[in-house]
């Protein structure tokens, strides 16, 4: 029966694509923030990314996984090896099977992936009223205008306007597709106590966690920007030299020289 269902879905879908039924909810355009990583010279704000890591660890990680993120990656946002080892050691992960064939548990090491909050999707759904909290590793790249979108979403909660049909267990958020989201407002004044003493306003926390998640989504961003400037400069000089060479080489052609007949 599965294949019949699959074919039906596929055909229905292509018909949909062809004939044009569409039922996507609309969402408000995200607020535009001037991020440090924007632009060709953009870099991560390491202090903010570190604060963002703290927000992720203490708030987001209770529901959202980060499956492509390993503790060793923290070196890129300014932590040293000892700090990373210590931070990893706060978590437990599955170890090797022992000599009796039993499962073991050990402290996490820098090479380990950040432990997922739930054993599997079903466990995640049942703990969250049926909604599946998505993994955040690539979230910034998986949405249009991702960084601004996430900042807007995190700070965009509010009361639904009169007449808005809010479903049971949902929260109003104009930046989310359809205007309602299962996630309750995650950030509140002073929810975390920043190690560097920065006041933890919801806006500050949202900006910081976006910095951190932008790093997780695109760890190569800084290396890419640095190399890009060099490559463009090289190509610019090369292209100018090629242009000048062309002009010199083409002189006899422009002068009308006949290369084949005297």
């Amino acid at each position, binding site marked *: 029966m599965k294949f019949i269902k699959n074919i039906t879905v596929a055909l229905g879908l292509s018909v949909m694509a*062809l004939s044009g039924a569409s039922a996507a909810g609309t969402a408000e355009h995200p607020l535009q923030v001037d991020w440090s990583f924007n632009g060709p010279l953009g870099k991560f704000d390491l202090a903010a990314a570190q604060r963002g890591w703290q927000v992720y660890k203490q708030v987001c990680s209770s529901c959202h996984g980060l499956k492509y993120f390993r503790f060793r990656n923290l070196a890129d946002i300014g932590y040293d090896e000892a700090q990373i080892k210590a931070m990893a050691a706060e978590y437990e992960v599955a170890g090797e099977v022992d000599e009796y064939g039993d499962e073991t548990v050990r402290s996490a090491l820098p090479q380990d992936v950040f432990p997922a909050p739930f054993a599997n999707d079903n466990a995640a759904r049942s703990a969250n009223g049926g909604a599946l909290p998505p993994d955040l590793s690539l979230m910034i790249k998986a949405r249009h205008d991702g960084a601004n979108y996430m900042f807007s979403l995190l700070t965009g909660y509010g009361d639904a306007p009169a007449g808005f049909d809010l479903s049971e267990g949902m929260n109003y958020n104009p930046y989310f597709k359809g205007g309602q989201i299962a996630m309750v407002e995650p950030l509140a004044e002073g929810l975390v106590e920043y190690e560097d003493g920065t006041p933890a306003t919801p806006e500050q926390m949202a900006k910081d966690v976006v910095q951190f998640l932008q790093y997780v989504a695109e760890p*190569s961003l800084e290396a890419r920007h640095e190399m*890009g400037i060099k490559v463009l400069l090289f190509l610019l000089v090369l292209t100018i030299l090629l242009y000048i060479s062309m002009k010199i080489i083409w002189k006899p052609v422009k002068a009308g020289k006949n290369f*084949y007949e005297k």
Partner: protein
Amino acid sequence: MAEWEVVKPKNKAVGWFEERLPVLSLVNNVVGPATPTPRNLNYFWNFGSLAGLMLVIQIISGVVLAMHYAATTGLAFDSVERIMRDVNYGWLIRYMHANGASFFFIAVYIHIFRGLYFGSYKAPREVLWMLGVVIFLLMMATAFMGYVLPWGQMSFWGATVITSLFSAIPVVGESIVQLLWGGFSVDNPTLNRFFSLHYLLPFVITGVVILHIWAKKISDSGNPLGIEVQSGADQIPFHPFYTIKDAFGAGVFFFILAAFIFFMPNALGHPDNYIPADSLVTPDSIVPEWYFLPFYAILRSVDFPLGIPGVIEILDAKLLGVIAMFASILVWLALPWLDTSKVRSGNFRPMFKWFFAFLVVDMFILMWLGAQKPEGNIPLYGKFATLYYFAYFFVVLPVLSRKEKTLPLPDSISSAVLKPAE
């Protein structure tokens, strides 16, 4: 075809080899000093060699990616992320390959439309042109299958929509779809065979490119005036003149490509493809890559059956749409016989010029329409744009061939481009 000029190397060892396998002569006669080429080629003639360079870049970057990629549904997405995060310069190679595909298409589209304007499809270059159409079709198949490999949401649903199109073919349609899928839905066997074919087809393209260049050698390059070479005065050696001009063009082209790779690597992609494929969640809208959009718009615009309403239906709407989409490219094969005007170059065809310009605009309109949700007036605009597209080939060109009063052609390339001696 110009005389074949044999290279006689001074070095004895090289000479010994050259006698047995004349590689140097081959290069010399295809892109070397012994390749007489019209002296008046403009920058639109750069895009052939650029497309060739892009093919090489795609093959090299693709081979490296294949060393790290796992073509199985459970690992494909993860292996791509591993390339992005843990493989040395993996991000660079992957962004080169992804943006390289787009720039390959940019080069090829400009190359094709240069041919359309300057009449490159006319005698004696019909076979050269048709081989080019074959290359384009192979490129589309390769690019489509390549986009499936990361196994993101757009990969999966794009593959589902496009492969399902074949089910519109009567009698054998369902069997073809099952063959493409390797089962009863887009799944692991589909991914596996797409990977295999995605690796194979570029080498098939390379083979057809060799034939394409061979045919070019036989009929020689066309030129913006569209008149035949008459004497040596009309020509210059390919090397060094066009090698340096192509190199300069490549510098400009790669500068723009590098700007995309390093500063907006995902601008031409779709964010949904950073979500792992999920057969239970349909994306809001399934949009193909930009280079397929004009043809996708034609597919969607033909949503009516062929026949007399209420009396007879010859072709159902879905099949007619699929036929229209394929016909929109296959019609290029018939161009040499649709446009019989003796004048090749659009420069000397005052009416053709306008219809051609509008065809270019029409392609951009179709591209835009293909990206829109088919709501409101979009399907209607699509029908007009599709109508013009086909009218250009089936009505405008044949009629203009007979009716258009063309401008007088110059006597020769040299007399047209060289200032008279003082």
